[in-house]
């Protein structure tokens, strides 16, 4: 199990918004998007859409899903599942932990163990 990464506080990301932790900072080499979903929870997926080169953090968050801003593929924020065409491959999830006000990211640790 990797060491969690402190990525700021819960106030840094408004509900319905997302922010990107670049690949060189999170250690995985791939950008990770942290989403503040409409259920109040925080989720993390690989930022690049599995269909084409697009940033999911730029997408539209609805409930606990994110819609890619480019071709409208949807992903489950909890499990990463591709929910509709044109995406067919799941997005990689990463565990996010809320410790008081602090947001902790566990890169490469599946959100649902």
């Amino acid at each position, binding site marked *: 199990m990797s060491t969690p990464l402190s990525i700021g506080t819960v106030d840094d990301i408004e509900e319905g918004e997302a922010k990107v932790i670049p690949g060189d900072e999170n250690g995985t080499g791939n950008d990770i998007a942290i989403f503040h979903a409409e259920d109040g929870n925080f989720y993390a997926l690989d930022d690049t859409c599995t269909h084409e080169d*697009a940033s999911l953090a730029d997408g539209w968050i609805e409930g606990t899903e994110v819609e890619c801003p480019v*071709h*409208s593929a949807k992903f489950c924020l909890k499990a990463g599942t591709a929910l509709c065409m*044109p995406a067919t491959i799941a997005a990689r999830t990463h565990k996010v932990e809320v410790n008081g006000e602090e947001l902790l990211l566990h890169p490469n640790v599946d959100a649902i163990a």
Partner: protein
Amino acid sequence: MSTADNCPSADSCSTQPEANASIGRMNRPEELNRNMDVSTFVDSNGGLIDRAIYNEPAIYAQEQRRIFARSWLFLAHTSQFKKPGDFFTTFMGEDPIIVTMDKTKKIRAYLNSCRHRGVRLCRADAGATKMFTCSYHGWSFDLAGALKTVPNEKAYPEDFDKNKWSLIEVPNVQEYKGLIFGNWDHEAEPLEEALGDMRYYMDAMLDRDPEGTEVMGGVMKWELDGNWKLAAEQFATDWYHVNMSHASALMVLSPTGKGPKPEIAATPGRQFVSENGHGAGFPTHPKSRFDARPVHEYYDYEMLRERLGDAAVEGPMTTGHATVFPNFSYLPVNGSIRVWHPKGPNKIEVWAWVLVDKSMPDDVKDAQRLYNLRTFGPSGIFEADDGENWSEIQAISGGFVTNRVPLNFQMGIGSEREDGVYPGKTSELYSDAAGRAFYKHWAKIMNTPAWHERNK
């Protein structure tokens, strides 16, 4: 076609590609764009117009090339764009256009047609987006018009270069006091110069409030049978029709209910005549005005006199009419700004906005909006009168004998002069002077090759 064909020279492409080098890149037979000499259709000195200019398809096609592809055309109002990604879709002539605010907050305009198979890229009237993605195969363009993703890109040839397939951008977008205009000619005379003295008359509507103007709500759109010039010309030059066409509306609006007094029905006034084809007319009788009472009570006329000058308050700020050549018109009294979109020689699509001063309290803005709708909305008591006349003219224009009989534009011939009060040349309020100038300019640029014909 290899990518080398895109570039005048390899060097110029690797550094700064020519703006819209793709337009007209493939050669066409000259027969396709054959231009005719239109000078005999317009006798601007004698005040005669040949009716063929309203319904002849070849003339309409030439207008697309030589009027709409090279004139300053109204696109939108700056208040329609607040943050990056806000967009509005419209037309320049028959060309579909996306107007949007890019990430640097610059307003840009693009041809609304995917570079791949040509589908209209954005089909919404207005909204906010991050990318413009084609619904056909999914080519996706960012707010700067750059092609960002091509599904299955690996199947394209190795020399396929996304940089060469950006959206076609309108190279010239300029603003005058909140009004955004676009021009396909990147060497066009700057907007403010093309407007010239017309700016003084526009300021009487656009510059009353130090905060400027904004548009309220959406755009009202309706279709009329008729040629776009019938509407544009009337707003440039025609106060003459008011007492006849709008007789019933004048009865309803007169404070006594008995109709306007003789001195108001025969109001004095001036008509601005621009050699660039613009026109504006306005009464100068202090009681010839039809403004909404809450708006009239809101204005501080002393302040306006200081800001705009006495002549502007007593003239173009009243019940005027105006056209910026070719197809943008407005009415200062109720803030109606509109575009006459050409949809074939026989059809106009009217797009009308409600313009108000930013500083107006909400109840005054609302009063202006309702007044605008009642008078010049799609079923307004004035608007419906005008559309009916234009459609009637068009409906019979196909008759062979009818079409050969010239129309009369002789009112006020020789009356154009500098009167020492109003900028530029003006004629009487009741005059066809701006109409003659509108068609003179029309004929001039119809007979002048445009940017896309140069060096060929």
